[in-house]
Structures are given as C-alpha cells and as structure tokens.
C-alpha cells in the first residue's frame, strides 16, 4: 500500500530476490535504437529488463510518455537519442535537451528520485555505451525498489469511508502485491 512505502521509496518486499525492475526506454530510431541493436548483435551481456519504444527522434518525446510509463508500472525510464550535432532531423535533440532539462528539474522538485529517469546520448556505434546505460538504469531502479508509490497514487490516503477500488489490473498487482 502506498502509505507504507512512501517514506523510503522502498516497498516492504523490495529487497526480495524476485524483484525485477521494469524499465521503459524511449529511444530515437536513428542513433540509440541502432546502437541498441549493435549491442545485441555484438552479444554484449546486459540486463534484460528494458522494453524499448522506438520514436523517430528525441524531439518527438513528450514528457507525458514518461509520466504514463510510471502510471502503468515502470520502475524506471530511459530517454536516449543522438548526440548534439548528429540529429537526423538537425535540431530535434536540441529541442529535446531543453525540454528534458526542465522536466528533469521539475520531477526532482516534486519528489521523483532522479535515479528513476536516465537521459543519455547514445550513437549508432555505441553499443557498449548502451549496455552501460541499461545496466546502470536497472541497477539504480533495483536499489530504489519498485515504484509502487507512483502507480498506486490513485489509492493514496483513501479514507476509511471510501471503499477501496477493486484492483484487478496486472500493472497494479505486479509481483502479487495488492495495490
């Protein structure tokens, strides 16, 4: 329950051996997606907790995607794209850089641990860097524990008279915990 987990960010059973963080990665098609593919074809060993969502450019990434990922059960998010000056669309990543600087500072200000959101520039040839970014993001999320307190915010401080919502969604009951 969110009330029990909110003060430390760690759920009671987060240290249980079976907690596998779920990371959503929003990556640009031209650089990071190709870099991730290179990591795969190079048989680099890395954590397998990441689900990749491919977009044409980091400039397309709306911060709402990240918020939605947390709402739906992500324990961490990666946003990654082309290095400055390498954007396939010339300036998409420059726009993204400002947008995400502000988003990063805002999320920190409202109490989302910065360890939960990773931003990176990973080029098409940086398979090894992608591996490092992924491993680090997964490790950080593992340390912070499941981000239950975010997705169960809809139940936060529900008063005694307010009947508990039936919780039937898989996202809300990940790992068998009652939302």
């Amino acid at each position, binding site marked *: 329950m969110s009330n029990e987990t909110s003060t430390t960010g760690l759920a009671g059973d987060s240290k249980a051996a079976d907690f596998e963080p779920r990371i959503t990665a929003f990556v640009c098609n031209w650089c990071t997606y190709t870099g991730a593919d290179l990591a795969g074809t190079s048989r680099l060993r890395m954590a397998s907790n990441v689900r990749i969502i491919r977009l044409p450019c980091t400039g397309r990434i709306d911060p709402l995607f990240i*918020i939605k990922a947390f709402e739906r059960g992500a324990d961490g998010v990666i946003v990654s794209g082309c290095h400055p000056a390498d954007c396939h669309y010339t300036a998409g990543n420059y726009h993204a850089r400002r947008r995400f600087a502000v988003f990063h500072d*805002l999320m920190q200000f409202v109490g989302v641990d910065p360890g939960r959101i*990773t931003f990176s520039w990973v080029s098409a040839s940086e398979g090894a860097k992608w591996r490092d970014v992924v491993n680090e993001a997964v490790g950080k999320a593992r340390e912070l524990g499941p981000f239950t307190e975010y997705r169960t915010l809809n*139940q*936060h401080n529900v008063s005694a008279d307010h009947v508990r919502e039936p919780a039937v969604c898989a996202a809300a009951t990940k790992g068998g915990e009652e939302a």
Partner: protein
Amino acid sequence: MRCSDEGRRGGVKELRDLARQLLADGTVDVVVGWEDSSRGARPIFAGTPEEADKLIFDTRCLHNLATYLNPRRKQVTDLGKLALVIKGCDAKAVAGLLREMQLDRERVVLIGVRCGGVCEDSMAPEPVALTPETVAPRCHGCDNREPHLVDHLLGEPRPEPPVPLLTLDERVAALDALTPAQLWEYWTAQFEKCVRCYACRQVCPMCVCERCVADKSRPQWIETASHPRGNFSWNVTRALHLAGRCVGCGECERFCPAGIPLAVLNRKLQRVVKERYDYRVADDPEVKTPIGDYRLDDQQEFIK
C-alpha cells in the same frame, strides 16, 4: 496610485478621462479594468461614460486582466475592440500572447499603470496599505513595475513594494533542500487536494489552447480522474507547459479552491529557466520563449 483619497482623485482621474475619451471617439468598444464593488476590486467591462467613471486602480487590483484576451472567449471577442488596463505582470502576459500569435495587436489598446505592488485580498472593502504582512509575495523582485508594452502609461512612479514575510524564492529554496522522499510526501499531500476544477488553467492568461492536452481523449494522456495519480499528471504537465511562459502573476494559486501552492511550482520553473538559460519573461514580444528555442552549448549535465 496611492491607497488614499489623494491617489484616488489623482491617477485614477487620468484613467477615467482616458477611458471616457477612448469610448467617446470610438477607438474602442469596451474598456476592461477594475471597479469597486460589493466584492472589493473586480473586473469591469466599461462600455459607457458612466461605467468608465467607475474605474479604479489600487492595491486590490490583483487580477491579471490579460486572461480576457484569450481568443477562445467568445463572449469577450464579441464585444469588439478592447482597451485593457494592465500592470507590469499583465503586460508580460499580453506580450506572451503576441509572441505566440494568439492575439492581433490591433485588437487591443493597452493602458499601462505604474504599480507599487498589490495585496493578497482583492475582496477587501478598502484598498490595503502594503506592509510585509499584507503585500502579495508575487510582487517581490518584480522587474516591470513600469510596463513597456503599452499605448498609454498612467500613474505616478511608485516605490518598491515591501519585502513579504516569506518570499516565493524562500519557499522554493526550502523545498530544494529536501530529500526526494520528503518532496514526494509534500507534493502528493498537495495534489491529493486537487479537485480538477481547472481554475488554474482558466484564469491563467497563458493557458489559451483550444484543446488543452488534459481534454484530449483519444488517447487520454492525462488521467481525468481527480485522484492523486491523475492530479500529479495534470499539475506537473501544466507547470511544464508554462516553463518559460509563466509571468508570475500568481493568479493560479489565488484561484485554486483547494489551496495548492501553484505559485511555488511555477516559480521553481521560472528559476530553472533563469539558471539554465538566463531567461526571464519580459513584456517584449520579440524575445523568444526559451523552450521553443535552443543553443548549441545548452547545459546537459543531466545527460549521460
């Protein structure tokens, strides 16, 4: 204009004369300003000389009247050409609308007033003398007490407003010093109160989108339900969409019936764009907004 009879007869007379003249010679159809009423100072849409004589300007004139320039407000656009009485913060909002091409400059005559700060209670029966207790925190650090984007500029130069007991920057700094867990607890307790009336959006002069992202239902990005998860999404998104655009008028917080400290949230982002991009909103429509712009050497310390 002083909060005294002398001031009321002095600067306010200029304002009423100008309003009467603009109406009489047909320059405008309506002068939008403030009147004294059963609810203190409140907006008036003066269309006749008698109504123009009701115009006032004192420390209770908190409202950002630029909110009436929202092109989606048919009941206001139907009135025809407007004259708008604006303080410095209001002028920044007008500049913002011009910058974002939401407003035709020919549609409005801007009557700027020199401002010495406002109090927090527009509904006080009499103008309130400004002291550290009564002055609105939003006025601290104002750089536009004599608005530039105007067709007319009225009133005597005013002294700087007193420093409030607790400034917005002090509250931002105190929050910045907290741990993520403490911040999470503070903001979830605040967002829990939100009833999703969207008063903050309705009063904000910069929130003029025809289809607000919160109203978009295919797909529904922002959960409309007023539980803390949906409220988190809404309040964070609105703050983000205002980054670099918010003029710091503080009306969002004043209007919120749930008492959420929205001015603190928006102030934080004002500080972020100042520190990262040396940007402060000005009432000059030619200056670009920071989030729609970029430099090759922008900060990226948060990116691996």
